[in-house]
């Protein structure tokens, strides 16, 4: 594995009323896509904003290429915030040119425009873009300095499925250029598709970290069985099964498919709506963070 480009050490962020980040440490190898996962309010955005150098930590530190973040980091980092307003009355091209003017080195405005497929929108007022187009423009702005490390904070939240897919394709093409990407998301399919390594956060702490496949393997047996909640009889509840309760359905994780099916039939569970599938990150997420409503 290549050397860490970013290292987070014992990060704590304390606000008067809450502790947003309660001692988090991890490192991000160069050239990987690192996913920070967690429910809303887990501390993902606070962590990534401290890593971006725009929020000071209460204690702990972030090292970029082994040194505290300095002017070099700002020149080499590309950032896409969860919410960003651009300057009014500028076109897509002018918005990109504005940010390009703030860096010493980088791609040309035209290169960035073609990289993010913005050619047809280049002369449009940046306020008149759809959600997906807006995110592509913000990604283009994050890429103007040809960054070594790219931060994406919930980049596809609020986008329609098609816009999400096209955004993922863009991120994959950036990954292919061997850029390091730090991504926060609460979409598990997004993390599964894009991330080489993930860290799951909850209530300001890291609760699991590693490559997605390894984490799944560590936490789950081979297959998942899914049943509608109303079909899961009290008799079935009495069985000794590993159960995850989601809103409408019950999920059972097992390495003995036949044995489990026999036990369910014996408990008179109707199997007409049964689904069998391999476990995914969403199962892992629910297992680790729980599915109950948060205050």
């Amino acid at each position, binding site marked *: 594995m290549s050397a860490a480009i970013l290292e987070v050490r014992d990060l704590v962020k304390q606000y008067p009323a809450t502790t947003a980040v309660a001692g988090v440490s991890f490192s991000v190898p160069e050239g990987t896509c690192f996913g920070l996962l967690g429910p809303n309010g887990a501390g993902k955005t606070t962590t990534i904003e401290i890593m*971006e150098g725009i929020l000071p930590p209460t204690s702990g530190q972030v090292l970029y290429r082994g040194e505290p973040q300095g002017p070099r980091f700002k020149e080499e980092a590309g950032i896409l915030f969860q919410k*960003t307003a651009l300057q009014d*009355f500028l076109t897509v091209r002018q918005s990109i040119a504005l940010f390009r003017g*703030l860096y010493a080195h980088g791609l040309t405005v035209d290169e960035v425009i073609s990289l993010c497929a913005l050619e047809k929108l280049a002369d449009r007022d940046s306020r008149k873009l759809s959600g997906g187009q807006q995110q592509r423009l913000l990604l283009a702005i994050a890429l103007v300095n040809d960054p070594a490390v790219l931060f994406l904070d919930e980049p596809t939240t609020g986008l329609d499925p098609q816009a999400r897919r096209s955004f993922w394709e863009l991120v994959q093409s950036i990954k292919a250029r061997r850029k390091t990407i730090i991504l926060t998301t609460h979409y598990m399919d997004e993390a599964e598709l894009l991330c080489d390594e993930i860290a799951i956060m909850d209530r300001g702490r890291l609760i699991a970290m590693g490559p997605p496949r390894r984490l799944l393997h560590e936490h789950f047996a081979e297959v998942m069985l899914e049943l509608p909640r109303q079909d899961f009889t009290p008799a079935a509840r009495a069985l000794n099964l590993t159960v995850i309760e989601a809103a409408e359905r019950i999920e059972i994780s097992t390495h003995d498919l036949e044995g489990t099916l026999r036990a369910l039939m014996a408990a008179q569970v109707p199997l007409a709506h049964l689904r069998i599938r391999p476990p995914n990150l969403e199962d892992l997420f629910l297992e680790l963070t729980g599915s109950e409503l948060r205050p």
Partner: protein
Amino acid sequence: MIQRLLAILHARNLEFLRDRGTLLFTTLLPLLVVVGMGFVFGGPERPLFKVGVVTSRIDRNADAFLRERYVEFVPEQDETTGLAKLSHQQIDLLLSLSSPVRYWVNTDSPKGYVAERLLLAAHQDAQRQTVTGKAVRYVDWLFPGILGMNMMFSCLFGVGYVVVRYRKSGFLKRLHATPLTAFEFLSAQVLSRLLLILFVTFVLYAGISLIIGFHNAGNPLLLILIAVLAALSMVALGLTIAARFSSEELVGGLLNLLTWPMMLLSGIWFSLEGSPRWVQWIAHIFPLTHALDAARAVMLDGAGLTAIAPHLLYLAVTALAFLAFGAWSFRWRID
């Protein structure tokens, strides 16, 4: 650094020029002021009735003449300043009571004639000297004040609200993630506003000059220098207010808190001469007071660079100090 500053400057200028409503308002308002002034000051002027006394303090009991009713006595530090005012008919008579009693009268001034009769009633043996010179009309005196007031509002509110809007929308936070420094950002804002203000002030100057038939007695280049330094100082003052807050209401209130004392005490509408010393002392904290003193000295008396140098120095120093304070206390994001 220059590259980053120019990038922000260019984008801000584009934004301003495309914001048609604001652009129209910024240029139309001063033009309305011009038209209004032409309307109000179209008629004949009435000069003020005043007697200047060469003394540091007026003691009404020191002389019978000083007890005259309906005459305003103002102290003059020395003969030179008194005579300058007399020649502009800002005072109608200049008096020196140290014996022998001497007085100067402007032979072009009808009021001076009346004041002279009153004086001779008390001091038949007073020595007479004369000066000549046309009256400075109130409108001529007010003219620099109107330019300065327009400049003050544009400086303080123009940049103040823009920066707060940028902060609220999160645009400043995004800029913070780039190598841009607070000083570079603020300098770009100052320069952008400076260009606009110089343009508007020039239009206003030309417009009012045409309407009221004003003649500038001094060097126009000095006026430009005063305008540049005054605008820099007041824009930077606006930025100190906008540096950290994210509520438009709060910033609006604070800016009002600054502009109202300046409106009243900087000598836009009336001269502070004769007002208590502490009022004058406070007035001279404001950059606008220095700008107007310097502009009037040039426009009405034809003063040169050395005469207004202290005012220019004050404006330059405050501009730098405000900008430095603004950059130091600057917040990129909502706390």
